[in-house]
Every structure is written in C-alpha cells, then in structure tokens.
C-alpha cells in the first residue's frame, strides 16, 4: 500500500487530505502514481497536481524528478513552504 498525503492549498483544492493506493507495478514510480491520481480524480485533480510549483516528497524527503516507489512508501504533494 502507498500512503498518499496532500497539504495546505493542495489539500483544500482537492478536498482530500490523503488516500491509500494499492502498490502495483503500474504505480511503481512517482510519475506513474501522479498519472493514476489524475486519471482517477478527473480534470480538477489533473489541474491541481500538475501545477508547476508542486513539491513532491517520498518518505518525508523532498524529491526532484521521478523516483521509484516501493510498497509501504509515504508520498506527499504540497505547495512551496511558508513557515518561520
């Protein structure tokens, strides 16, 4: 199982804080997972998740570009951070 999380503006725009996705070979990397979420979520999800400033993290570390996903991984999508 992949645990997928959404934060801040992304969470609000999707109306979803997170969901579980069964890990299989068709979602074995980050880009494939994102494509799956967009396909299942429809145009709204495609638009929100494709925003150019979207940050993606795997197992609580930010990743640049595509990366393999393994069963049990935690994946997060969020906008640029604004703490401090």
């Amino acid at each position, binding site marked *: 199982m992949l645990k997928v*999380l959404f*934060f801040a503006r992304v969470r609000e725009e999707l109306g979803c804080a997170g969901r579980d996705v069964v890990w299989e070979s068709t979602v074995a990397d980050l880009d494939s997972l994102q494509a799956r979420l967009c396909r299942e979520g429809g145009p709204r999800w495609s638009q929100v998740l494709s925003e150019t400033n979207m940050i993606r*993290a795997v197992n*609580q570390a*930010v990743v640049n570009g595509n990366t393999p996903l393994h069963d049990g991984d935690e994946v997060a999508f969020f906008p640029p*951070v*604004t703490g401090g």
Partner: protein
Amino acid sequence: MAVRVQVADFEVAELQRELLAGAQDEGAIATFTGYVRGINSGQQVQSMELEHYPGMTERSIEGIVRQACTRWPLLAASVVHRVGLLQAGDQIVWVGTASAHREAAFSACEFIMDYLKNEAPFWKKEQGPQGAHWVDARSQDRDRAARWDNGTPKGRTTK
C-alpha cells in the same frame, strides 16, 4: 539539540535557560523570535492558521540544525515552532544557538532560520477583513537561503 513543534505558546526566557543548561563553556547565545505580523503585504492580518506535515517537519528541522552544527562550533541549538491558530502579535518561532564566541552563534541562528523558511513543511493561511488566503512563498526567502550555498555570506566567518 532540541526541536519542538507545538500548539502551545512558549516562554523565551525559559527556552534560553534550557539552552544554557544544555551547553558547556558557552560564551555566547544568539536567539531569534518570529511573530505574526498585523499587516502583511499591505493587508491586515487578524489571525493565521499554521499547517504542517507531522513527522517530516521535525525531521526537516533536525536536518537543518545538524547542518548548522557541522558548519559552526555550536555547543547547543534549539528550535521551537508553533502550529495551529495564531493571532496577530503571537510568537511563531524561536531559534537559539550557543557557542564559545558570538560569530558562530549569530551565523548559525540566521542560517537555521533561512533554511527553515525554505525547507520545513509549514504553510500559513492568513485571515483578515478581506477573507482567508494562503501565503505565497517569497523569492527573497529562497535568495536568503541560497546565500549559504557557497560557503558563508560575505563578512561572516566559519569555524
């Protein structure tokens, strides 16, 4: 090294005493306290909701503090960051660094804040008379953090 993410307010004097108690032979402590601005980008701010990514937030700040410890001879360093609903004027964040001399303490404190603002997964949603909106990330904050990429900014020394 102590990193805390909490809803509760904090007492600066108490945090400084704790930092001092955790350090040996310190000659200098530098601290930074951040507050909720009443006016941001020309708009009145009444309150602010601070969201974060539990787990990654702590991990991210701990990583930043570890980096600071490798760059400067720190004897102790602590970060406290609040989350949840805050009002204008409330304290948001506190960073404290202890070292034998002031330069390392000043530089490390600034480095930790610059990196925290760019890397730690917090998001601010401001509420004012015009309604609520998510705060946009500022390019100036990215530029400030990038200053540390190639060594230490001009005029600052490392160990």
